[in-house]
């Protein structure tokens, strides 16, 4: 029992679910910006503490919830970014209320949905039942759809509708895959609940009918791959990022894509445990590489700053999927590291972009110039973030990209050439746009903006720190997860 467990009647696994669920109910009732924004931060902090306590002591797995080496990485990352985003959201939403872009009526809705999203993502991560995991991802999809459309503009509604239709098709296909996995497991594990429990599935996967598992994985890859934002199923992602409130863009890129990827990784492990099933790697490698190169080219044509960074998310999710598809201890380690650092960096970039768009009153790249002069702190924060996301040394993403590329060179040099090509294309686009936006004569408003810099620079400091020095225990932890992934 942990220090939290001693005081509360439930364990820490349930706490990461109960706290956001309770907070969502409370926030749905509470009017007023001041109180609800602070309560939102407080609830996110409590969830983070509960997640951290899981590192110290893990409750025993139940039929519905469990914590293991793999999902704890995702849970800690999700609750951390969830907390920092709630801090950013407090100042961001305050400004949106002032300029009247968001009405108080929608504010209550916004905060309740934020906590519901946290609840759904945590549930998807700690679920020990593949059906429950699917339901959680569905809830997460629906809440984000509602949040993307919250501004009620033409663009926001169109983005929400597109996201809704594509996301629904994606999760419908994932459900079909889930049913097929159950069908494969039933002869071995018997009817009912048992054949959907993850811990039972992975232990007995060797005896499942391989043909069914193969078909199931194709559906799961297409279904959850849509949610990861892999090309050619990515069409919803840029619109949803560009038109929703920026805190949601940060959470979408930083967390929800990871949650879908986590689901995919789980099923990849299941297939890997069955010797007669197809190797899931090549499929993931192909889609990952396709997304990377496609998004790299698309980056050049963006005119909207949030849309540009959404394409950059597609690029990085492609890279991460590629790394996990390659498999092996080194590539998995690099993929895991890259995923964590990408979450931190991309949400930091969205924190900066959110305040910049508020300061300048526009998201159009051509109307934002000379940020380092007009808003030095935000401008340099963005520069640092873009330098990190482009993969320049000495920041953390350089190291993880280097590891992915070098491990690929050893095993498949041809793929590595394509990989490097894709990375260079994206690098060029990001540098080009960043120099336009950050330097030169400033345009638009130069009035100072009320911003919360702490989340932005906390993330960037972590990313920079990871590039210089990775603590030993963290490396050992990630290595053990990488071995688990096979």
């Amino acid at each position, binding site marked *: 029992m942990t220090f939290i467990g001693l005081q509360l009647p439930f364990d820490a696994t349930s706490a990461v679910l109960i706290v956001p669920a309770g907070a969502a109910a409370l926030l749905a009732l509470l009017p007023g910006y001041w109180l609800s924004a602070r309560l939102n931060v407080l609830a996110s902090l409590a969830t983070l503490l509960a997640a951290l306590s899981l590192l110290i002591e893990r409750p025993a797995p139940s039929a519905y919830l469990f914590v293991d080496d793999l999902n704890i990485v995702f849970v800690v990352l999700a609750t951390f970014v969830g907390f920092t985003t709630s801090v950013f959201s407090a100042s961001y939403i305050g400004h949106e209320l002032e300029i009247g872009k968001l009405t108080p009526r929608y504010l209550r809705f916004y905060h309740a949905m934020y906590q519901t999203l946290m609840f759904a993502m945590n549930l998807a991560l700690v679920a020990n039942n593949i059906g429950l995991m699917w339901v959680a991802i569905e809830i997460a999809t629906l809440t984000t759809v509602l949040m993307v*459309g919250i501004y009620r503009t033409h663009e926001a509604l169109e983005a929400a509708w597109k996201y809704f239709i594509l996301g629904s098709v994606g999760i*419908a296909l994932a459900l079909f895959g889930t049913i097929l996995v159950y069908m494969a497991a039933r002869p071995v594990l018997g009817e009912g609940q048992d054949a959907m429990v993850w811990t039972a599935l992975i232990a007995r996967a060797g005896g499942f009918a391989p043909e069914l598992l193969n078909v199931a994985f194709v559906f799961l890859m297409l279904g959850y791959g849509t949610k990861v934002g892999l090309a050619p199923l990515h069409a919803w992602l840029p619109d949803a990022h560009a038109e929703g409130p920026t805190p949601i863009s940060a959470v979408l890129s930083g967390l929800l894509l990871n949650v879908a990827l986590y689901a995919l990784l789980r099923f990849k492990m299941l297939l890997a445990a069955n010797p007669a099933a197809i190797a899931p790697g090549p499929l993931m490698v192909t889609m990952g590489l396709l997304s990377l190169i496609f998004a790299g080219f698309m980056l050049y044509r963006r005119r909207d700053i949030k849309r540009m960074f959404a394409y950059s998310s597609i690029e990085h999710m492609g890279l991460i999927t590629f790394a996990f598809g390659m498999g092996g201890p080194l590539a998995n380690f690099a993929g895991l590291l890259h995923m964590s650092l990408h979450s931190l960096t991309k949400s930091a970039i969205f924190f900066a972009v959110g305040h910049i768009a508020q300061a300048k009153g526009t998201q159009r790249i051509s109307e934002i110039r000379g940020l380092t002069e007009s808003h030095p702190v935000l401008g340099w924060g963005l520069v640092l973030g873009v330098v990190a996301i482009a993969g320049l040394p000495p920041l953390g993403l350089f190291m993880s990209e280097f590891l992915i590329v070098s491990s690929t060179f050893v095993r498949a040099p041809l793929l590595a050439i394509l990989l490097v090509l894709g990375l260079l294309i994206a690098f060029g686009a990001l540098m080009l746009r960043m120099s336009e936006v950050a330097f030169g004569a400033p345009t638009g408003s130069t009035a100072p903006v009320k911003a919360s810099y702490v989340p932005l620079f906390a993330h960037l400091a972590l990313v920079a720190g990871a590039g210089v020095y990775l603590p030993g225990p963290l490396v050992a932890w990630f290595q053990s997860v990488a071995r688990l992934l096979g």
Partner: protein
Amino acid sequence: MSSHLFDIAHMLAGGLVLLSLALLYQDRMFGLLNVFALHAVVLSASVAWQGHIQGAPHLYITALIALLLKAVIIPLALRRIVVRLGIHRTIETVVGIGPTMLAGMALVALSMVVMLKATATADPLAREDLAFALSVVLLGLLMMVSRRNAVSQVVGFMSLENGMILAATGAKGMPLVVEISVAFSVLVAFIVIGVFLFRIRERFDTVDVAALDAFRGERR
């Protein structure tokens, strides 16, 4: 299991595939909604029949939900939307009816080949149910891409979802079936509410999705 129990299960599942194909060539809104309501009735009969032959009473609840929500409430709600928006004349299709039907038949053949091959070891009822279910799913997808009208996209999605429920109930002893069907119904309700709430007509003056594309940020 006696053979007539088996035959009826097949007949109902096959009927669902047939109705999915019928949905593809409906070129009037009301016709589309009527066929969809029938689709839901057949689904609920199929689910209830599965409940009967599997001895699983909780499937009756799923069947009842499908009947009430999908065969009555949602078609009525959509009908009201269609009347209010005045779009009951015709449906615009991206591709013609002929090619769509050919593509539909190809998809049915594909799902038969894939599923019957993949499930060679599973029990015969479940495997053919799954093949039918996959056909319904793929036909629903086809319908969503071959229609540009938001209401018919919703109908396409709901027929896809009926295929999911068919698959879930065909898998014997699948837990969470009721929960999943409820979760799906929530999803459907969201779509319908979405059409209402978002008031696409009001915002865009048309429910033609192609017109919405003009608002994409890239073309600003």
